[in-house]
C-alpha cells in the first residue's frame, strides 16, 4: 500500500460540482464514480449527467433524496446509458426522465460491488487502489461548518446521511486521512474536498462502501 495516493493525480476525477439546494448527493457520488471508472479504462474524462440519474432512477427520490445502492441497482438492472452532462444538464430540481435511443452514445455499467469495511480501512484503501474512487455514505452533520483540516471528531457512525466519493488517502503525516470529494462546490472545505481521519470509522465512512465496474 503506498503511503499516499489520489486518483486525481491520474487525471481520472472530474471537477467538484455543486448540488445547490437539491438533495441529490447520492446521484453526484454515483455519477462521479462512473466518470472515473470510464476514465480509468482509457476513455476521455467526461462529466456525465447527474440530472439523468435524478430524473430516471425510479427507486430514488431525485432532489428529495436517495441512496447510492438504489442508483447502482437501477443502473445495473436497466443498463441505462448515462449521457454527457452537456446533453442533459443539471437544473437543481426533479424533472421528467428523458429517454435516448439505443444508438445514442452513453456510458453504462457492468456491475458494482458494495461492502461494509468497518474495522478494515486498510483493506478499503486497497479496494480504492484496485477498483477506483469509492462511493461512501457518511454522517455529515458537522460538515456544515467545516473549513479544512482533518475531521476526527464531531460525527458518528450509524447516523450516515450524505453520499460522497473517496478519491484517495494520505498516510504521510501523523494523522492519516481519506481524501473525500464532496458536491457542495469548490469553495467549501479544501477546494471542495474534505479530509477524514483513516481508522476508527470516522463519520461512518467505512460502513457503506461501493465501487462500480464498467
Amino acid at each position, binding site marked *: 500500500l503506498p503511503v499516499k495516493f489520489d486518483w486525481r493525480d491520474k487525471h481520472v476525477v472530474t471537477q467538484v460540482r455543486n448540488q445547490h439546494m437539491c438533495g441529490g*448527493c447520492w446521484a453526484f457520488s454515483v455519477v462521479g464514480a462512473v466518470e472515473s471508472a470510464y476514465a480509468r479504462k482509457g476513455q476521455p474524462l467526461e462529466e456525465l449527467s447527474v440530472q439523468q440519474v435524478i430524473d430516471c432512477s425510479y427507486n430514488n427520490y431525485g432532489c428529495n433524496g436517495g441512496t447510492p445502492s438504489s442508483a447502482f441497482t437501477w443502473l445495473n438492472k436497466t443498463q441505462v446509458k448515462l449521457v454527457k452532462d452537456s446533453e442533459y444538464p443539471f437544473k437543481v430540481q426533479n424533472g421528467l426522465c428523458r429517454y435516448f435511443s439505443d444508438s445514442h452514445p452513453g456510458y453504462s455499467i457492468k456491475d458494482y460491488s458494495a*461492502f*461494509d469495511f468497518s474495522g478494515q480501512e486498510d483493506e478499503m484503501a486497497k479496494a480504492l487502489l484496485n477498483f477506483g474512487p469509492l462511493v461512501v*455514505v457518511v454522517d455529515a*452533520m458537522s460538515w*456544515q461548518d*467545516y473549513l479544512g483540516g482533518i475531521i476526527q471528531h464531531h460525527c458518528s457512525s450509524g447516523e450516515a446521511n450524505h453520499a460522497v466519493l473517496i478519491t484517495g488517502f494520505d498516510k504521510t503525516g501523523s494523522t492519516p486521512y481519506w481524501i473525500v470529494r464532496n458536491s457542495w462546490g469548490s469553495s467549501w472545505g479544501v477546494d471542495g474536498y474534505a479530509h477524514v481521519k483513516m481508522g476508527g470509522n470516522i463519520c461512518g465512512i467505512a460502513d457503506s*462502501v461501493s465501487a462500480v465496474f464498467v
Partner: protein
Amino acid sequence: SGPRSRERQTAAFRESLKRHHYLNSLFPGENYTAVYGVNQFSYLLPEEFKAIYLRSKPSKYPRYPVEAPKPTSSVP
C-alpha cells in the same frame, strides 16, 4: 427574502458562530484537526441544512471478506 427570513438568517448565523466556537474548542492541541467556521452554510439552521443537503441513507452491506491466511501444513 423578507424581514422574517432575514431574522431567521441572523439567528442561524449567530447560532453558527456559537457552534464554531464550541467545535473548535474541544480538541485544541490536536495535530491537523479540522477547523470550523463561517462558510456558505452559516446562514442555515442545522435542521435546515440537514433537510436540504443530507438526503441520503446508508445501506446495509455484507462485511468485506478478507482472505483468510492459509494454514501452514507443516512447520519446520
